[in-house]
């Protein structure tokens, strides 16, 4: 076991994948000499060379589009989109090309492409650097969408994503890049939780709290605080946003009868809406309260001086827990 930051855990996971398979490539803006603006690819170009860790021209559609071509040639590109708000120039290549090559070719083509996107707010950044665009990609069949929340998962999930023959949109919680935890860097993937599975990160019996990415830590803190009020929260880290591991969520809600979904993205047509609908369909007779959502407002992400009001925090999670418990 080694104590690593989330950023370094990703770096180690990428390194393992690069070592294991010569077809794995890393491409993006500033991923080479600089090591990425968050240093996730630090040192990799030095060790694996410029043809495997590629500083690309500054063009997101170009990065993803050429990654598709490289995948068609048998490579496994891992693209870095520098910030969440910069993924949109690549949107067509992701949702209309990357996601659909397999179907378009009736299964003849596989698309082992990973697109890493630092996401979410909380770092005092300017516009386009704090967004949570995951739902756009969850809506595009053919893509898998995952979000890591801590160093240990980051280390395994990035390797699992690279090993997948389907395209994976990989969200990294940028304000948690410096969170530290123990990571077993010697472990192989055989014993790891499958990439499609959610994980229960706190056991409880009163309210199910479903989250992913940067707010998992917030929800864990809420669980500690709620315990002082005599409430136990069952906290689920979804990890996989597409496909959703509804089995884990449903099992928990059938136990607790109450559900709160927490994410940074706007609540309107967000993942919380999807989960609420599915929980209602599958847990109708177990529910003691409507499913509640805690998320970003249905507004653009505000200037950073206002982000502490916009972002769900401990108190807003606890407020929702109080409200579902009041039924």
């Amino acid at each position: 076991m080694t104590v690593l930051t989330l950023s370094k855990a990703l770096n180690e996971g990428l390194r393992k994948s690069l070592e294991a398979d010569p077809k794995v490539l890393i491409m993006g803006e500033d991923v080479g000499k600089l090591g990425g603006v968050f240093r996730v690819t630090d040192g990799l170009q030095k060790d694996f060379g410029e043809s495997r860790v590629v500083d690309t021209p500054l063009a997101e559609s170009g990065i993803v589009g050429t990654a598709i071509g490289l995948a068609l040639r048998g490579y496994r590109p891992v693209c870095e989109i520098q910030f969440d708000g910069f993924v949109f120039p690549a949107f067509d290549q992701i949702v209309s090309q990357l996601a659909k090559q397999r179907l378009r070719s009736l299964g003849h083509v596989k698309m082992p492409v990973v697109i890493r996107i630092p996401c979410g707010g909380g770092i005092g950044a300017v516009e386009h650097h704090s967004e949570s665009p995951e739902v756009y990609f969850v809506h595009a069949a053919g893509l898998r969408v995952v979000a890591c929340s801590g160093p240990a998962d980051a280390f395994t999930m990035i390797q699992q994503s690279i090993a997948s023959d389907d395209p994976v949109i990989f969200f990294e919680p940028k304000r948690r890049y410096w969170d530290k935890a123990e990571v077993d860097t010697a472990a192989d993937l055989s014993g790891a939780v499958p990439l499609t599975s959610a994980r229960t990160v706190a056991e409880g019996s009163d309210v199910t709290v479903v989250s992913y990415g940067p707010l998992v830590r917030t929800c864990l803190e809420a669980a500690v605080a709620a315990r002082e009020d005599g409430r136990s929260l069952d906290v689920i880290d979804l990890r996989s946003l597409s496909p959703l591991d509804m089995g884990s969520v449903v099992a928990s809600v059938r136990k607790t009868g109450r559900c709160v979904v927490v994410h940074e993205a706007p609540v309107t047509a967000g993942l919380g809406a999807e989960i609420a609908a599915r929980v209602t369909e599958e847990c109708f007779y177990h529910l003691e309260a409507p499913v509640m959502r805690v998320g970003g407002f249905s507004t653009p992400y505000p200037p950073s001086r206002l982000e502490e009001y916009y972002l769900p925090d401990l108190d807003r999670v606890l407020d929702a827990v109080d409200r579902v418990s009041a039924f």
Partner: protein
Amino acid sequence: MALTVPAHQSRYGPPPAGRGDPAAGPDHKEWHVAVDADGAVTAAPGSASLDRQAGSRVETIQLLTPEGERLEHPEYPLELSTDDVKGLYRDLVLVRRIDTEAIALQRQGELGIWASLLGQEAAQVGSGRALGPRDMAFPTYREHGVAWCRGVDPIKLLELYRGVSHGGWDPAEHNFHIYTIVIGAQTLHATGYAMGIQRDGLVGEDGEAVIVYFGDGATSQGDVNEAFVFASVFNAPVVFFCQNNQWAISEPLERQSRVPLYQRASGFGFPGIRVDGNDVFACLAVTRKAMQAAREGQGPTLIEAFTYRMGAHTTTDDPTRYRLATELEAWKLKDPIERVKAYLVRTGAADAAFFEAIEAESAEVGRTVRQGCLSMPDPQPLAIFENIYSEPNALLDAEREQFAAYLDTFEAEEVAR
């Protein structure tokens, strides 16, 4: 064949009358339709120039005139046996026949839509026959002639237009990727594929290269320009083959560019060349040379095949709303098939029996395409759920199961009756 474009202004001078007007007047189109019988396209005086750089020349490579006269070009020597020429003629005739049959099938309701290649046969067959078996091609949705050269069964092309699949052939089987419908997106795929060839160490002697097809309209797309940048800075072995058929649905070339398209390449740092797109010999020779340069590590080339979309954009389009019939008449004189026929007749290389045999084969290909279309089964409803992911997906599986059960209720009703 070369022509000099009259210089009408300095590079930084005031724009010609009407140029700044978003609703450009009719003079705006003039050069576009000014075509000489020898294939030259001339900028009409007083209108937007093909080339705004004073005094520069626009050269179009031509090796076979519309009258079937063979020309030599020092940079593009082309040795073709009589059988080679006959083979090209056969390709041209058969791909036109497939196209004609598909249009008829659409008119009869058997295809939802069809994108005709009429007029572009030489550009497609010439470039398609320039490829080696290990070269890779990335088409748009109109490259039926290239598909033919790569050995893709024409019936597979109809699947897409009939709505049976979104493509469905194995790109690796023919080294011919699936049709891409979003304009220009495939130029990046081709560039990435070429970057893969570089990483495979297959640039140089016995190298491989990629060709990607797109049209004049696509040159305005960001993706195409990004592909130019990536290909250039990485020196990728890719040939950008632009069929400038003069029209992006209803928009003329001048709505896409103020310079001849092949000249765009110089700004990206690689060679651009214009070829008579209705001359199968020239398209073959120019593409061969560019592909060989790419294979050897000399990087990308932009080829502008100057041609004409003689038909509608697709079967849903009505070109009479936006272009003059005289324009089509002018281009008919430069038909890509007629000039090869004229050459074969003029040189005595082919007799009437040859042409009759090709006609008979063409009729047979037409029948086969028609029959293949009519006998194509519709996919089963549950095929909706197939080939989305390589691994099982619990949510999709559940939806499939529910939908299958729902469909079964109808069958049960049928049985009950």
